């Protein structure tokens, strides 16, 4: 392990706060004046506060939304700190504190499976730095060299004399010390906490009803708001008849919210919702009122054959190779809009006065919520604060987008001094999403006489998330995120070497706002690529695993996970009667992932996903038990999507308004998931998202084997398939 150097006053890591509008560097606040937590306990550094009762408070900026990140990050801080795990607890710093202190905690954004992989180094350094200071404080008190002292389980021992003291006793003195200029991180072989399936820190309150989600927040004098925004994206409010509902029980205010929404503010949310439902609102639906799923699909279809497209990868001469191939294979796939539908609908609570705006919000990105608060309130950063509250799911909806924060602040500004909790109904949540983008793909392949893949063209046509959300991140107009999983290098590298290869994207944007949806663009790219690989193997008359392996000699880590699932499943050996297998693998969010699904299809349309074996190589596995849960959970999200989920557009608006038209898997449909966690070391990959992308193509490939039919448009319910 290299020894990182810390320039103690300006340690800067280049973490651009994408979308937050805040691009300060990361500075660890080192100095002789003691910074104190709210309860007066000394802060050893930004990550570590030690209370006199020995409690170790680990503070991290990433959000816990069920994925286990907070526990994992605490494990890493505690590992280097040599803290007694039983005494570890966590808390969130606020974005306002972070900005005021020049971003000591780095990036708050909790998306892209970055929570651990992109903060592991600085949180470990935070723990190590604090340990060195605590040991030094003990050594100073004893008048001995620090080198003669060691720390374990929050206890410092002076080896020659056998004297001991504890972190809680020396914390005050440690906080006054000058931090070390550099710290040495442990070799992974020495890890005691990292890599262990330690129980998560946040379970008990979730089983007793005690955990407070954003939607549960209560503040003194608080009112509740229900909102309706123009269901046609881009539309506006033409008018509303407040007088019709103003006398209804509990109703306090009926207010416009921006130019596109109306809110009712009442004593209770149920009263607000009843009044909102009764409120006559007329909309100016704007230019998109005629758009439908069919018109969008036509625009995408045109892109499949368009001359102009953004080229991501071009190797050799694809057109020539395919034209001269012994066998040509072509297929068109299509993937729909999908809603995140976290169980907790969007909400935010805001309190506004002329000199302070406070927001309480379940968010994946506290800084982006802070930026939205600043913009909507018109107040400067030192007069705004955001308090992160627990999330009832995020999946990307609560990361880049804080439209509900903007709304809550706009409402609160109209009732200054009164806290207002804005909660969206499920119906509002369904029609005001930031949807998984629509995408079509035309896959063209050429095989030589021996069945080798000699040319592959993957033409994507559809929406760009970046063009809509972070246009500053486009590269010469091209959205590189569109190519997740089929990139030439990086965290989403294509696992095949094809001598003639063209991957390009005809960008066809729609008025339906796209968003980052757990797994993002690799979900559909994995389906397009890995289903088509099976189509090519079938055309070549070669086993699907063998066909892939021939293209993977330069991709040993991809191959390792693929081999792992194939071996575990007994690929090549007969499956039980009526059971069919399918494979898929990708590199996603820095991790190598593969799946082998076992599926039965009965009665022609009843699909039982019996078992999925999943392998992941995330480089390092911080908490294997939590990784297993993320794998199984990601499969629920991914399989719900491919079987059931589609948001269709009619007259410019989303048609599905609740779970009765936008279904999600139940326990009866849950396959047995077997995880193979095989960290190979030397890199840090993500966990929350990567595996989602291999579930669908593995199941689809198994279904094609079971039925002899290849389905290329989704969700499967549109073809009559039911998950049983």
């Amino acid at each position: 392990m290299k020894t990182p150097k810390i320039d103690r006053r300006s340690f800067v890591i280049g973490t651009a706060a994408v979308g937050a509008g805040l691009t300060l560097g990361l500075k660890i606040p080192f100095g002789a004046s003691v910074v104190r937590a709210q309860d007066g306990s000394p802060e050893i550094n930004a990550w570590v506060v030690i209370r006199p009762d020995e409690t170790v408070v680990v503070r991290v900026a990433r959000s816990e939304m069920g994925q286990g990140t907070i526990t994992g990050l605490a494990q890493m801080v505690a590992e280097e700190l040599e803290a007694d795990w039983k005494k570890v607890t966590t808390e969130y710093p606020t974005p306002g504190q972070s900005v005021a202190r020049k971003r000591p905690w780095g990036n708050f954004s909790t998306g892209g499976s970055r929570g651990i992989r992109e903060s592991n180094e600085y949180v470990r350094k935070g723990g190590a730095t604090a340990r060195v200071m605590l040991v030094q404080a003990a050594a100073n008190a004893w008048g001995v060299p620090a080198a003669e002292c060691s720390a374990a389980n929050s206890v410092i021992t002076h080896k020659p004399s056998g004297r001991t003291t504890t972190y809680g006793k020396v914390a005050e003195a440690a906080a006054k010390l000058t931090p070390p200029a550099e710290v040495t991180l442990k070799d992974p072989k020495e890890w005691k906490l990292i890599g262990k399936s330690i129980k998560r820190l946040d379970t008990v309150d979730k089983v007793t009803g005690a955990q407070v989600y954003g939607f549960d927040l209560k503040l003194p004098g608080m009112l509740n708001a229900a909102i309706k925004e123009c269901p046609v994206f881009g539309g506006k409010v033409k008018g509303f008849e407040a007088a019709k509902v103003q006398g209804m029980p509990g109703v306090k205010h009926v207010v416009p919210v921006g130019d596109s929404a109306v809110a009712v503010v009442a004593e209770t949310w149920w009263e607000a919702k009843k009044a909102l439902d009764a409120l006559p609102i007329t909309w100016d639906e704007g230019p998109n009122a005629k758009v439908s799923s069919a018109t969008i699909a036509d625009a995408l279809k045109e892109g499949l054959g368009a001359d102009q497209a953004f080229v991501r990868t071009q190797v050799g001469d694809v057109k020539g190779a395919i034209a001269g191939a012994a066998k040509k294979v072509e297929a068109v796939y299509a993937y729909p809009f999908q809603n995140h539908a976290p169980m907790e609908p969007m909400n935010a609570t805001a309190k506004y006065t002329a000199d302070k705006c406070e927001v309480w919000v379940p968010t994946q990105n506290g800084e982006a919520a802070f930026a939205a608060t600043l913009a909507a309130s018109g107040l400067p950063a030192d007069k705004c604060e955001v308090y992160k509250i627990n999330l009832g799911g995020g999946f990307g909806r609560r990361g880049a987008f804080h439209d509900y924060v903007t709304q809550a602040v706009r409402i609160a500004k109209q009732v200054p001094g009164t806290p207002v909790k804005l909660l969206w109904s499920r119906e509002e949540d369904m029609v005001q999403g930031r949807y998984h983008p629509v995408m079509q793909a035309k896959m063209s392949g050429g095989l030589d006489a021996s069945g080798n893949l000699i040319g592959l063209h993957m033409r994507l046509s559809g929406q760009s998330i970046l063009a809509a959300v972070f246009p500053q991140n486009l590269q010469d107009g091209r959205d590189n995120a569109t190519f997740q999983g089929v990139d030439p290098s990086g965290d989403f590298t294509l696992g095949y070497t094809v001598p003639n290869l063209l991957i390009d994207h005809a960008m066809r944007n729609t008025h339906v706002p796209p968003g980052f949806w757990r797994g993002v663009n690799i979900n559909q790219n994995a389906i397009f690529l890995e289903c088509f690989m099976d189509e090519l193997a079938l055309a070549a008359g070669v086993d699907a695993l063998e066909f892939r392996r021939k293209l993977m000699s330069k991709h040993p880590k991809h191959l390792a996970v693929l081999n792992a699932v194939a071996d575990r499943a007994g690929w090549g050996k007969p499956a039980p009667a009526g059971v069919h297998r399918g494979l898929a693998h990708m590199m996603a969010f820095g991790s190598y992932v593969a799946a082998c699904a076992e599926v039965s299809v009965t009665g022609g349309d009843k699909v039982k996903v019996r078992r999925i074996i999943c392998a992941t190589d995330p480089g390092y596995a911080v908490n294997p038990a939590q990784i297993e849960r993320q794998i199984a959970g990601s499969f629920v999200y991914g399989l719900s999507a491919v079987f059931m989920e589609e948001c269709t557009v009619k007259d410019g608006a989303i048609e599905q308004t609740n779970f009765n038209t936008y279904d999600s898997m139940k326990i009866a449909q849950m396959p047995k998931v077997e995880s193979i966690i095989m960290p190979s070391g030397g890199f840090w990959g993500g966990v929350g998202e990567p595996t989602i992308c291999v579930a669908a193509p593995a199941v689809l490939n198994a279904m094609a084997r079971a039925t002899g039919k290849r389905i290329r448009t989704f969700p499967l319910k549109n073809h009559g398939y039911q998950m049983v």
Partner: protein
Amino acid sequence: MARLTINGKSLELKVDPSTPLLWAIREQAGLTGTKYGCGVAMCGACTVHMDGKAVRSCVLPVASAEGKQITTIEGLATGATLHKVQRAWVDYEVPQCGYCQAGMIMAVAALLKDKPKPTDADIDAGITNICRCGTFQQVREAIHAAAKA
């Protein structure tokens, strides 16, 4: 006005009788462990017990709960002793975000009252709650563990 018995306590709530029980529990009784997920009895996040049976409180008018024993997640434990389902949920680390789990736990507690040793088929038929984090594998393990406890 409605008189409800929630977790053994008799409460006089200032609420329109047509208000769904869910909102009376949350907004009048102030017990926020019971969640709103859909409002149309599709997701089960609002599951509570009414006279020992699991009901989806988001579509049940508060008037129909009068005179019944309502138990919410806050009333499932006995003092500081967790219910065996809650205990299994902790042991098997079931919750991810946790938002749906109050409803899931209440549904499972009612299932186990009916079927103390449920088969997988019983679980499939009896537990139809939506969990978007996808905790079902742990839910199933924990149900079997709770049944043995």
